[in-house]
């Protein structure tokens, strides 16, 4: 008899739950929908991310921000879900107008993905002050505006593993607490990366806006302006004689996956993101069938400068002078555990397959 009563009670509870579920779910889904602003949306990562988010049912409106007219490849998207804005986040007025604009408020933007960051090649063509302004001050201004707005609950910053101090006696896997590179004599672009990363870190405790910093290993992909992409694109590469460090390459798909997960999951903090392929630099060069010459370290900088002058490479040795000697692998344990990130794609080289 007792057993029967228990069963009835259980059934009743289940029935009640079933009735309430659809209503609650709808309301929950509506409130959970992510409306995302992407800066630097015309870049390779930005455009791929916009596309991935567009086909995600959990994402509402996507607002893309970049300099210049709307590129043709965004025309395929429904303007109700994807909105493009041509503006310069460096200009305080543009930035203020963006946050005050009716379509920004209508879109109920609650997530900002900050990808706008001049790469080393573009930086070199501009004055040091100009790219520092965009990379560092631009990041700071945008972050402050997001926090001030009150409606932005998440700010995601795409950082890089160049922020870490590379030393021969580093642990083989660097976790998120590893020392950053505060050396005064490093390439200005690395300084920018570290400064921007630090600006975001300083706001990690903010209660209204969850800050997420994603530190990626070397991104490889078509049209990506990463250092390693430029390295393997060059017809001739130089590496430090007597050194052959392990490097990790991450496929563009995994970059998008990591940002996507950071948008969807209720997380904050710093996460290392690495790809599925790790090997010595010479192994990747061999798979890519690129010519690689080992030179004594003092000759690397002038040789690289010569190649750049001749238009044979877009790679900057000054950024990677330690990376060409010592291994730098990221400990992705935190990203695996908290974000649920697992690299899924392997890197393909045009000339060979990795």
């Amino acid at each position, binding site marked *: 008899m007792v057993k029967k009563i228990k069963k009835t009670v259980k059934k009743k509870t289940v029935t009640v739950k079933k009735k309430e579920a659809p209503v609650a779910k709808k309301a929950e889904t509506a409130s959970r929908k992510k409306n995302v602003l992407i800066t630097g949306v015309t870049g390779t990562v930005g455009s791929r991310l916009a596309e991935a988010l567009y086909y995600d049912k959990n994402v509402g409106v996507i607002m893309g921000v970049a300099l210049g007219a709307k590129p043709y490849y965004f025309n395929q998207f429904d303007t109700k879900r994807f909105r493009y804005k041509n503006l310069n986040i460096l200009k305080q007025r543009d930035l203020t107008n963006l946050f005050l604009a009716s379509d920004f408020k209508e879109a109920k933007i609650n997530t900002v993905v900050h990808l706008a960051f001049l790469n080393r090649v573009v930086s070199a063509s501009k004055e040091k002050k100009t790219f520092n302004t965009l990379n560092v001050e631009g990041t700071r201004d945008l972050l402050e505006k997001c926090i001030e707005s009150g409606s932005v609950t998440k700010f995601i910053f795409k950082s890089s593993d160049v922020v870490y101090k590379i030393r021969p006696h580093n642990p083989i*896997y660097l976790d998120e607490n590893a020392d950053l590179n505060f050396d005064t004599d490093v390439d200005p672009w690395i300084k920018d990366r570290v400064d921007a990363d630090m600006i975001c870190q300083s706001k990690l405790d903010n209660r209204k806006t969850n800050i997420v910093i994603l530190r990626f290993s070397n991104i490889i992909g078509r049209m990506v302006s990463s250092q390693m992409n430029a390295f393997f694109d060059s017809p001739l590469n130089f590496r430090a004689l*007597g050194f052959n460090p392990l490097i990790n390459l991450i496929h563009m798909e995994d970059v998008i996956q990591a940002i996507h997960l950071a948008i969807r999951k209720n997380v904050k903090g710093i996460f290392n993101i690495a790809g599925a392929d790790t090997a010595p630099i010479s192994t990747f060069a061999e798979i890519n069938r690129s010519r690689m010459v080992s030179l004594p370290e003092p000759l690397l900088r002038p040789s690289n400068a010569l190649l750049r002058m001749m238009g044979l490479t877009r790679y900057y040795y000054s950024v990677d002078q330690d990376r060409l000697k010592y291994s730098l692998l990221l400990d992705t344990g935190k990203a695996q555990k908290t974000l649920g990130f697992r690299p899924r794609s392997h890197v393909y080289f045009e000339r060979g397959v990795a």
Partner: protein
Amino acid sequence: MNQRARQRARAIVKMLIPEDYERIQSIKINDLGFGYDPFGLEIESAMMAYAVAKFIYTHWFRVESHGVENVPIKGPVLVTPNHSGVLPFDGAMIMVDVTKKMETPRIMRAVVDNFAGFLPFVNTLFYRWGQIIGARRNFEELLRQGEMVLVFPEGHKGTGKPYGERYKLTRFNVGFMELSLLNKTPIVPTAVIGAEEQYPYMLDLKPLARMLNFPYLPVTPMMLLVGPLGILPLPTKYTIYYGEPLHFYRDYPPETVKDPETIYGLVDTVKTRVQELIDQGLRERKGVFGFSLSSLDALLGGAGETAPPDERRQIQEKAGT
């Protein structure tokens, strides 16, 4: 190495050491997909290094060993020998010995000094052969992966000690004990006899060493006599003694690492055990070169120096043994 080079390396190893080829070929590594483990170990490079070291092991140092059955065949383990001889041939000989004699061959990962990381070629070769630069995190990762780790608790103080200090252990670092307790890892105290006489060195060129980022730069009498050939170690006879494993973690929980006094006490126990094995080795050996050659032995300090030095006595008193 590319695939062709790897095949060539395997063929060379098979030709050089056919008796060991199958054994070392069966060793598995944590391959990340390109033939390297996360620390940069490449099995073919390690096989080549083994073949070369085996030649030195057999023909130069004529290594003998006792108690290899004390080294656990699986799971994490720390092997802690005395360190000496300017160049770390002692580590290489222990590695060859365990690979050759253990029932199931294992790759021994040695923790090397930070300065090795700065050196071109040395850096790459050490990683390919399975050696690890001494960051604590690397150490932990290896033990977590269940590897056999060779650690010299004396550090470079051991290899750089003057000839007159031979077979006197210098201060032991405590990091290995903390990691042993934290990772529940047995410690195998080990003694190497013979290495301490291989480079009888006279003076240390400290300023030059500092310039080159080396911990020391010794000058040996052989360097003065035969020039660059003096870099070759004397063909002393090596004898390795493996003691019974010490399972401190069974009696001391991981929280013990917060108690420096206990940690120092446990380290002293290991040090005393290593010293006992050294004393046993010195008593049992027939001569520095493995045979009695009284005049040469006398020149190098004799074969049977068994009287425990003052420092050893102090340690034994402290450890209550």
